[in-house]
């Protein structure tokens, strides 16, 4: 079965990059442009994995992760945080919010797919 990945990022470039890498690896990709949009797309598509950016308008990555984790329907979905922050405190905050794992930008497709494999059943 083709697995669906939801990517949440305000940068079109980054969304396109993710889409190319993920669809190239056989995933179905759905996209959202910020956390708020992400929650909408989430209910419409029920993804198997979520990849989210941290810095976003409206609802940022932390808020988005927290919102997913308090929803009984979605809290078991693995969430990978996508970030360039080398700052460990950001990563820690994302984990406290409930992030399953992380991907450091710039990523290569192998790393990305590996990270998904590590968290996706």
């Amino acid at each position, binding site marked *: 079965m083709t697995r669906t990945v939801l990517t949440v990022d*305000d*940068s*079109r*470039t*980054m969304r*396109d*990059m993710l*889409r*190319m*890498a993920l*669809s*190239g*690896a*056989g995933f*179905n*990709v*759905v*996209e*959202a442009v910020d956390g708020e949009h992400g929650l909408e*797309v989430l209910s*419409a*598509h029920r993804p198997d994995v979520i990849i989210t950016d941290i*810095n*976003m*308008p409206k609802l940022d990555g932390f808020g988005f992760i927290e919102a997913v*984790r308090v929803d009984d329907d979605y*809290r*078991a*979905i*693995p*969430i990978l945080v996508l970030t*360039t922050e*080398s700052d460990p405190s950001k990563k820690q905050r994302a*984990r406290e919010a*409930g*992030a*399953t*794992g*992380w991907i450091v*930008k*710039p*990523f*290569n*497709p*192998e*790393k990305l*797919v*590996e990270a*998904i*494999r*590590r*968290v*996706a*059943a």
Partner: protein
Amino acid sequence: MDELEAIKVTFFQECEELLADLEGGLLAMQDGNDDGDTVNAVFRAVHSIKGGAGAFGLEPLVRFAHVFETLLDALRSNEIPGTADLTAVLLRASDVLADHVSAARGLGMVDMDASAAMAAELKAWTDPSAAAVAAAPVEDAPEFEGFTPIVISGDDGMDDDDLGFDFQPMTISLDAQAADVAVLDNVWTVSIRPKSDLYRKANETGLLLRELARLGPIQATLDDSALPTLEFLDAEAAYVTWSVRLETEQGEEAIREVFEFVDGDCELEITRGEAPVADVLASLMEVALPEPAAPVEAPIAVAPVAEVAPPAPVAVSAPVPATPPVAANAPAAAPAAKPAQIEVPGPGQSVIRVDPERIDRLIDLVGELVINQAMLAQRVGEYGIAPSSNLAMGLDELEQLTREIQDSVMAIRAQPVKSVFQRMPRLVREVANMTGKQARLVMDGENTEVDKTVIERLADPITHMLRNAIDHGLESPEERKAAGKNPEGVVRLAALHRSGRIVIEVQDDGRGINRERVLSIAVKKGLISPDLTLTDEEIDNLIFLPGFSTADKISDVSGRGVGMDVVKRSVQALGGRISIASRPGLGSTFTLSLPLTLAVLDGMVVDVAGETLVIPLACIVESLRPKAEEIRPLGPTGSVLAVRDSFVPLIDVGLTLNYRSKSPPPTEGVVLLVEGEDGSRAALVADAIHGQRQVVIKSLEQNYQQVEGVAAATILGDGRVALILDVDAVINLRRRGPPSPSDPTLIAAE
């Protein structure tokens, strides 16, 4: 196009938008109009540029963006206070960032010295010791380690499963056999005791075991002895522990990496060698069970044993890296084979990208449709069919539909002028710096929409008008102070719709036009005769004459060999007009007006000396039949018409365009009161009016040549070609007298 290249194109488009957001945000901060989120948006813009640039390995851009971002991060977290000085620096930094983006795109070069100086200046704000300049590259370096531009090789998607099966079992089973008889150096014992947090973050022990199994054959033992009975079970809690015997050639590092995401969320012990299962469990039990009231039986007796084979087919649905990571980094530059699956836009995407040529073709076709519909209406009219008949009513509906289609099609190509406007703040900063003026740009109506074909041609005239306004219009700060003005001059750039045209205004609050000087220069250069009496307005507009330049010396900025006359001509070529109004000491306003589209026009069809002409409806104020007593002769040949309480010059269009040499009495014709771009009025005399019609503009320049007094041509419903009148030009022709015989003769083709 290569998929990656396509994303790169997107990236640069996005950069343009982000740079505009960045500048907009910084300008809002400068004006004190920012809210709490502005600084975050500004930060995100730079952050996103850096992120994308990193993915494409655009290192100089990434480096500069990184320094910029660091400062913005400090600003948004209130580590450093926001001041006017800082905002000014950030604005200049945004210009340098824009240069980096252009350079990365292959357009222009970055002045690396200036960029380094800017970077040092930015660093100095976050780190006043500022010696950090040299340390910067080192500090940045780790971000790029392991960077690989995305290359998807054909191996990635399709063949993974095969590779997984072929490769792993073979090597490992051989090694395992060898290991059994020889040293047990490659055997590890991993004990895992998850905490509930591990599950809360949607991690799974099963997946961790699957990952371990990728390193080599594992034997996992579950200890569920701490599992309470159902009635005491907390579904959210973690009760079980695992002990895994792993055979692998890889070191502890690789094993630890499996647990990277759950670091801190489980108790993990990795030991080399084979631990007797019971021992491991016993050691775990001590930790696991605070109350030793637990089972008496040996834990091993209750622990079910799970065997997981390394190439577990169930587990390996995700692709395995086809090449070792080191090798994967190497062929980065080599163009990869197209990925097996071409991306299909997801349901979340609501934007369609269309080749502009298709839209152009559609617009052309709709234009033909309009002509065809008009022709049909005319034919039906000729048969004398009653307007109330079904046929005529059906035709009316057709006309309405045609018009709606046309509007909708034009709307596809309509874009806000923002894309042009957003380049201007930088221009103003630069021109102000170069000329030593202080200038602030205020923009209005950025969202005014206009056809894409027009937008593309707006940039040059606006650029020139702005340069002119700052260089010639604004005074130096000292002069301004002396005149009791704010040393900072204000330049206003506005876009608005006015009677079916787009109007661009560039207004400055400078000194206004020095009319005496303009007049004397025009006389000195032989552009006008010295005894001519001109109105203020006419003097102002002398600056558009070819060969006129008021600057004493050609400055770095305005005088780039392009005079206002060239601007005027390029605007006119688009069916536009440009004019200037000036008030001494208070400033000047340039007004540029262009048709909203270069495709269609609403016009009044008139007869003049047996020719059919179209007068743009936008210019017409009213039409009337003059009475003899309203016409007064003026001068030897001219006459004026009394319209209410003013006199307007009467212009016989037939005479002006050389269709006839003698005017019939105006009382026999129809008068159209028109208004020129500068507000001047005239009464155009035509022989008869045929009514209003929408016409498709066909360029005369492209198909024939430019003719003074004529803006373009069109094809009428009956298939005849009609000329579209350039009202302003006709008014001006009249002022200068009838054209000389050398002017091209006008013949409307049959």
